[in-house]
């Protein structure tokens, strides 16, 4: 296979692997803080136990997240050196800030994890706050570089390819930075909330658990549902803004996302189906008249640009329409699930029936699928560019012929690590079940 494709495959799978752990790494400390605060307010030791158990899981996940984050950070320089040459000149600032955010997270995580029992409660809370801040700041700063790749700004490029007139802050605050960063953070919160919900629902499905244990899991599920609903709504509202930014700054990407070939006023929104080049439309889709125009700029007569505005060689692959639909679909389904479950609890005031618990179990995996689809959409939807309209992926990639071998090596590593993480989490929590911790708390 061609080196460029191999380099993309290697980097793409590294990022796809890292994002699983990074998402949890951003969301979970916030859940831990919520549990710690609830413990302080309600004086209910179940919440302290929750924080402690989540921290154990977090420590395992964080290790893989740090390791894979290191891989991604170094690998991007190795595989796309010409890209990094421009990054180094224009948008190095977020990378530099990120290492310090990362270091804060790492130092305070060591402190929280290995020295929690020797810390006074206040300092413990400060430590976990620092971990959460470090994680969120890291996510925002790395997303900044990603946003800049989509909407590059803060420099000029001369015909011979050299960079001039660098304005660091203009690059830093590029047009899609804020919306993209919020999108990454909100969706991470959302996904982790639903993962916690999945685990609690899975436990509640078991028949032979004690009343104390049932109560414990119910409390966890309630936190997950409230936080999940708030953050999934936030993700959706901000997702709408993200789409409007696409309309404004990346119309080609929006056209591919929506499978729109001809520039249209009163454009319909196509949900589902696939974009067919022969038919010049999305086949087998549900069409909502005028909706795309309205979503793009809040007016039904908005003109939305179609792919035919650009030569075909500048189009992203047409399947990004499917990725986009998966992302939006997951987000919408999660809002419905959370609303429905909370309606059941608060209005009907009934116990969750097994089928509803089973539905809640799907929430976590769905969220993660949404995250993966979203990242794939954003990166593949930018092709054939690494930096939109500035640097093509083919020019950015390495020419080394060792990439194929490394691809096999790293795929093996990632598959092994996914299974190993699942195994270790299972092993640890099987040996330290909630029932045991609850019993310890009472004695």
């Amino acid at each position, binding site marked *: 296979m061609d080196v460029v494709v191999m380099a993309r495959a290697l980097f793409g799978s590294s990022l796809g692997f890292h994002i699983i752990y990074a998402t949890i790494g951003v969301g979970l400390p916030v859940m831990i803080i919520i549990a710690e605060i609830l413990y302080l307010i309600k004086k209910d030791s179940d919440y302290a136990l929750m924080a402690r158990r989540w921290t154990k899981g977090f420590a395992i996940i964080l*290790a893989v997240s740090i390791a894979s984050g290191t891989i991604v950070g170094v690998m991007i*320089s*190795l595989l796309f050196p010409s890209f990094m040459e421009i990054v180094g000149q224009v948008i190095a600032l977020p990378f530099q800030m990120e290492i310090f955010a990362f270091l804060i997270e790492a*130092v305070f995580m060591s402190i929280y994890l290995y020295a929690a029992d*020797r810390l006074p409660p206040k300092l413990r809370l400060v430590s976990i706050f620092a971990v959460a801040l470090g994680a969120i700041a890291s996510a925002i700063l790395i997303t900044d570089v990603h946003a800049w790749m989509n909407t590059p700004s803060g420099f000029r490029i001369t015909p011979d390819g050299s960079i001039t007139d660098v304005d660091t802050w203009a690059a830093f605050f590029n047009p899609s930075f804020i919306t993209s960063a919020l999108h990454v953070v909100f969706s991470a919160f959302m996904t982790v909330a639903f993962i916690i919900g999945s685990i609690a629902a899975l436990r509640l499905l078991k028949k032979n658990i004690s009343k104390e244990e049932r109560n414990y899991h119910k409390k966890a599920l309630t936190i997950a549902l409230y936080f999940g609903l708030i953050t999934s709504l936030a993700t959706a509202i901000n997702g709408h803004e993200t789409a409007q930014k696409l309309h404004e700054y990346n119309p080609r990407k929006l056209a591919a996302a929506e499978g729109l070939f001809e520039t249209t006023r009163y454009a319909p929104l196509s949900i589902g189906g696939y974009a067919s080049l022969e038919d010049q439309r999305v086949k087998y889709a549900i069409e909502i008249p005028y909706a795309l125009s309205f979503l793009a700029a809040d007016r039904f007569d908005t003109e939305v640009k179609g792919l035919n505005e650009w030569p075909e060689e500048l189009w992203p692959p047409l399947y990004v329409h499917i990725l986009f639909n998966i992302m939006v679909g997951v987000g919408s389904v999660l809002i419905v699930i959370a609303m429905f479950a909370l309606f059941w609890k608060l209005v009907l005031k009934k116990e969750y029936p097994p089928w509803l618990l089973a539905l809640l179990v799907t929430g976590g995996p769905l969220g993660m699928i949404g995250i993966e689809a979203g990242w794939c959409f954003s990166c593949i939807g930018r092709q054939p560019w690494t930096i939109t309209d500035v640097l093509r992926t083919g020019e950015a990639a390495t020419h080394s012929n060792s990439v194929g071998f490394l691809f096999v090596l790293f795929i093996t590593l990632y598959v092994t690590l996914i299974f190993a993480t699942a195994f270790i989490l299972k092993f640890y929590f099987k040996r330290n079940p909630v029932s045991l911790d609850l019993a310890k708390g009472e004695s």
Partner: protein
Amino acid sequence: MEASSIAITILWSILFVYAMLGSLDFGAGFWGMVYGKNSQTNASIIANRFLSPAWEVTNVFMVILVVSVITFFPFATTLLASILLVPVALGLFLLTVRTTFMVFEHHADRFRNVLLVTSGVTGLLLPALLVSILPITLGGFVDFENEYPRLEYNELLAHPTLYMHVAFGLTTELFISAIFLMDYAKEADNWAAYHTFRKHAIWLGPVSVIIAVLTIGTFPTEAQWIVENIEANWIWFGLSIIAFLIGYGALFIKRENEQRGISRLAVVAIIVQYGLAIYAYGSAHLPYLVFPDLTVEESFTNANFSLILVVYAIGFGILIPGFILFWKLFLKDRRYLKQD
């Protein structure tokens, strides 16, 4: 001082810190393996107790190093990435295996033996890989094919200087970690472990210095430029040797409690020894990053350098309190050091 000189000095300082932390981290992994199964001494426990919280900090310094290269010297990325792809990617692979196994083990102690072997073996392989980058920059191992740089693996693997560099890297790593763990064992009042590490420091010290000197003799013929620079810098290398002699001598001074060795003095002197040697070597390496294709001056960034410096200053300003807390909790707190 020119901006590019400030930048290379900062980069070199980060390299120095990473070399020290990495030696400790990887060396502790190796010693943990060697003494893991031997119940007569608890040197392994001391090594692993240090390792558990410290690896994250070490790891971050590696990332700082890479990011600093890109931000200070963006025009070096194309050449460096092309020739270092394989060694660095293999290093990442090993580092990931090491990191994850270490944390997994902490949560599932049934797998302790797997961990001890993994962190011990990677504790040797990783520094060997990292130190193999040094000879690559000396000249003679990089060729251009249709304008694209390639590392000549056959020439590199067949050249004795590679193996001398690896031997130098490993003896240095084990010497530094033995000295440090000796001091760490003293903090924990663990005299059996203390003497184990002292014994190793005593033979490793002279061996590492002799290998370092011999390594210069194996430099490829293309690297005559740096040999001349090293000879011109002899005074700094001489001071480094003096620092070594002070630190090494400290191993033999009798303490008040009849135990031999002032470990804290040894640690400080050895850090000074390597500090002097690394900066002297770094200045002998100038003006090249990679001889003869890449100089510090031409790879230097054209971005706002003072802004980069401000970010570094603020970043370290925030971090120092974190490090102090870290130091107190893991290197000083007797409840952590002496737990069973």
